[in-house]
């Protein structure tokens, strides 16, 4: 297997006034192509911090991080933006969508940034919305979509630009059980059918139990990292 993400000796310290808050204390981690991985751990353990660093949204205090062999620490802000655009799909906990764009336009947005021709990106966006089960919702603005539907649009967008990895931070935190189940099933299907690589920060057992790789982080370090067969959807 090839590593898509390689973290070596990642530390991250936040300064709060004069106090130094260590959020990550030395993380070594490799995410392989095709992984369907959860990043679990108690609140405050550093999940979000790690995900932000992997996604090129934040920089580590120490250590190196590479995506598809490219060293992120060497990139400036504009280059990091390009890297996020081309290599990473994000699904955040909430406020994922651009309010003034319709569902299909939101999905098209990243492709538009990549100058994909209009016809091609529209077709791909519609196909993605179809994949996430949102046929007929294409022209709705986010304000007219439910929370679950918004997360689906976010997944569709994350996939539309064909990223190397999709990073999701507590994607189910704001969803009810049924909707959360549906979303995780969707992502699992996409992983199995198309080999899309997922890394999800979560402390939601419904999500953890459905992933194949369980990474647990505690106190800013990787506490355990094991492969297990994922439970089937009920």
């Amino acid at each position, binding site marked *: 297997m090839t590593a898509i993400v390689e973290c070596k000796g990642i530390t991250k310290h936040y300064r709060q006034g004069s106090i130094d808050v260590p959020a990550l204390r030395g993380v070594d981690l490799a995410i392989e192509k095709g992984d369907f991985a959860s990043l679990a751990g108690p609140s405050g353990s550093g999940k*979000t911090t790690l995900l*932000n660093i992997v*996604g090129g*949204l*934040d920089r580590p205090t120490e250590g190196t991080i590479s995506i598809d062999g490219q060293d992120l620490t060497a990139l400036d*802000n*504009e280059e990091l*933006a*390009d*890297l*996020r*655009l*081309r290599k*990473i799909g*994000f699904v*955040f*906990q*909430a*406020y*994922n969508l*651009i*309010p*003034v*764009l319709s569902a299909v336009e939101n999905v098209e*947005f*990243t492709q*538009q*940034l990549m*100058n994909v021709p209009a016809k091609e990106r529209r077709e791909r966006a519609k196909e993605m919305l179809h994949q996430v089960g949102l046929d007929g919702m294409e022209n709705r603005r986010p304000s007219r979509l439910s929370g679950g539907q918004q997360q689906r649009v976010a997944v569709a*967008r994350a996939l539309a630009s064909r990223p190397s990895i999709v990073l999701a*931070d*507590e994607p189910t935190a704001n969803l009810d059980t049924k909707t959360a189940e549906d979303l995780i099933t969707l992502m699992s299907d996409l992983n199995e059918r198309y080999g899309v690589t997922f890394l999800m920060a979560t402390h939601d057992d419904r999500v953890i139990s459905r992933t194949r790789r369980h990474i647990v982080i505690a106190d800013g370090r990787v506490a355990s990292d094991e492969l297990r067969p994922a439970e089937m959807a009920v």
Partner: protein
Amino acid sequence: MMDRLRLLLPLAWRNLWRNPRRTIITVLVVSVGLWSILTFSVLLKAWSVSSRDTTLKLMTGEGQIHATGYLDDPTVAHRMTQPAGKLENILSSSAVAAYTKRLRIAAIVQSEYKTLPMTLVGTDPARERRLSVLPDRVREGRYLDGPADTGIVLGRNLARRLKTRVGKRVVVMAQDEKGKLAERAFKVIGLYAAPQQTEDQFAFTGLKTAQAFTGIGTDITEIAFVTPDSQDIADVIARMKASSPGRDIQSWKTLAPLSYAVSTFFNEFILMWLWIMFALMAIGIVNTQLMAVFERIREFGLLQALGMRPRLVLMEVTLESAMLIGVGVGLGIAMSVLSVQAFPNGIDLGFLGRGAELVGAGHILYPKVDAGDFALYSLIVWTLGVVATLWPARRASRVSPVEAMGRF
């Protein structure tokens, strides 16, 4: 670049209408501000044109030709020959709309009751009519009927002070060609109305009569001329100067310095007004745009997280401002054009009475849309407005996606 615009334009346009109330307020601030600048410029320009015209159309014309030295000592000693050769060619060409020849000298007028100083102007009425309004301002009696007319036309106020009237005689004294005092009786044939200062100063008789009176043959002391609207007066004067080096040729700017000062003052006033209004507008615009940016910090974080380059975010926000201010500018122009068109017959300043006369304006202002001025002022407001909003836009592009989106 086109791809970028196609991406940013709809985004910016829709963002503009997310908070319609705020957008409308900003649009109103810009449009009312620009409206005040544009209508002010139109009014002041009309005022200054009217003031200029009023002065120039009394006697001055747009330019005058004298013998060198005449302006300092306006007597027959500084007379000149009739225009000839190249100068005459220019005066008769299309570069000059009309010109008149005068013999204009300091004189004393005497009635049975009083002796007063004044200026006697010998003129050719047919030519005079084409650049002066005074021949048409005769309120009693008649104007001169030709260069050989021996009557005299006085200003109403001068006649009142002399206690004379149409049909009576006055005696005029002036230096003749030899420096001796010439004296002659004139029959008062008409009284004209004009600003008081003019009424008191100028009295008119036929050019030939005045020449005979002072004994200077066919010489004259003054040529006044006007140019067609399209003509550049400085250019005409330069050509005249080249054609006759011995003569003193001046434009109205030096002949009527007060009118010129008024028009330059107005231009400066308009610029000052533009800056004041712009400063007020800028405060409003920058404020609302800053507010709009802060409200959407999270969204700017999202845009960057998704891979939109900071520079593109800057462009997007700037584009929003450009559209916002552009809409305001468009509305401001429309409002100004409508305001100006609301006065197709001019604005009558009659209610100001002599007050308007004092500051040198005619009684009716004719406001006119000057496309060049409108374009210039609008462009200044629009450009400066957009530049002012670069600050909020920069804030938006400097947002750190992690901090903006909070901790997920």
